[in-house]
């Protein structure tokens, strides 16, 4: 039996098919959890995020259509937005997040890591080609979800330049990543 596409599974989920939701879960558990952990830096919170994402999916609160691009991209965006909600709430309640370094990083086998290993390697290489400030701005904006004001403070730059810097850093990253995908040279480090 051929494997169902994400969209086919999603359509089944919309019709209340529990096994389809379970298949989506199995397909994305590790990626979504790793991403949620990267953003929240807390395993309990990351699990709460995953639970919330799948409740949205199941309760049809998150609506996907093929016009929105790839299902995986949409699911990751829903996950990011849910992470941002949890990060904000955690700050509001002053819940102490665990120090990332104090956690056991992972107990996954190499095989488990393989699903997005190649993309990650290319992205990491591309990221390392960015200037340190650009790497920092990507992290503060995308993974930490900070406001413009906070990013300006953290980077010591004028508020009015934050958006432009983020955009530029992301553009450079994309270019380097594409170059890596083509197998070409990365070019010099941006400074």
């Amino acid at each position, binding site marked *: 039996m051929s494997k169902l596409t994400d969209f086919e599974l999603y359509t089944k989920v919309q019709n209340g098919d529990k096994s389809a939701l379970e298949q989506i879960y199995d397909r994305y558990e590790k990626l979504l*959890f790793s991403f949620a952990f990267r953003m929240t830096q807390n395993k*309990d919170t990351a*699990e709460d995020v995953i639970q919330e994402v799948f409740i949205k999916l199941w*309760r049809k609160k998150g609506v996907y259509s093929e016009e929105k691009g790839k299902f995986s991209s949409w699911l990751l965006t829903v996950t990011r937005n849910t992470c941002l909600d949890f990060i904000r709430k955690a700050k509001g309640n002053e*819940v102490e997040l665990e120090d990332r370094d104090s956690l056991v990083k992972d107990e996954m086998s190499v095989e488990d890591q393989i699903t997005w290993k190649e993309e990650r390697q290319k*992205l990491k290489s591309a990221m390392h080609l960015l200037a340190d400030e650009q790497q920092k701005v990507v992290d503060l904006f995308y993974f930490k979800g900070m406001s413009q004001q906070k990013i300006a403070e953290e980077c010591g730059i004028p508020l009015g330049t934050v958006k432009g810097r983020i955009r530029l850093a992301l553009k450079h990253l994309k270019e380097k990543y594409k170059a890596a995908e083509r197998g070409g040279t990365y070019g010099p480090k941006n400074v």
Partner: protein
Amino acid sequence: MDPKMCDQLIEYLNGHMNDTEKMEFEAHMEECPDCLDECKEMQELMTDLPYLSEPAAPPEGMKERVLSTVFDSEEIESSKAINKPDTERKSSAYRSRRNWISGVLAAGLVLSLGANAYLLAQNNEKQQALEEKVSQTYVSVNLAPQDSKSSGTASMVKGKKGMNLVVQTKDMVPVKGKEAYQVWLIEGEKKFRAGTFVPDKKGNGTVVFDVDYPGEHNWDAVAVSHEPTAKSEQPKGSIVLLSKL
């Protein structure tokens, strides 16, 4: 175009806006092609970034916890339409999993008025004092065990500063390490934390919780779950006690 609005894209993408601000910004983008293009471009540029995440191993048992909560969230919703106990509902593949609401339906639901009237009849001497207390009790229920031998009561009590939830339990299984019991108030598919406790050596545990969640709430049920830590923002462990409110 409002130049101030054009500077709000980052706040929009990172969710630093309330609902009104978000709607205003979306309305602005409809009139400002530059902002719309910029937003689309940024979203496109962000697509691959999740793959930068280092692989992290999901906690043991996460799949079962997540999926059972997800599917139970549906049952809570559907149970709202049920007026009286129906223990013969069709079983499903997930029926045997921990179940937030259906257990309530089978459980004996003891409302405060009957129970308190009985108490009054037992003690005429303190009738006046009891009446005063009874008048403050909004609702009281017996908590039904869910695959456990535990028992307990939950009462909503109107205090001077507002509503309190008082939960008393007995015959609770001892906790290990960081584990704790967490009380939840359930409204529709949402679960609100309502106190944490660790039972004593005899298995007794009590929680008095100020129910001061903002806004109007129509609580459907109260539950006690056995959690891996006292910090769960949403239930992760198994439900040991549950009753409809």
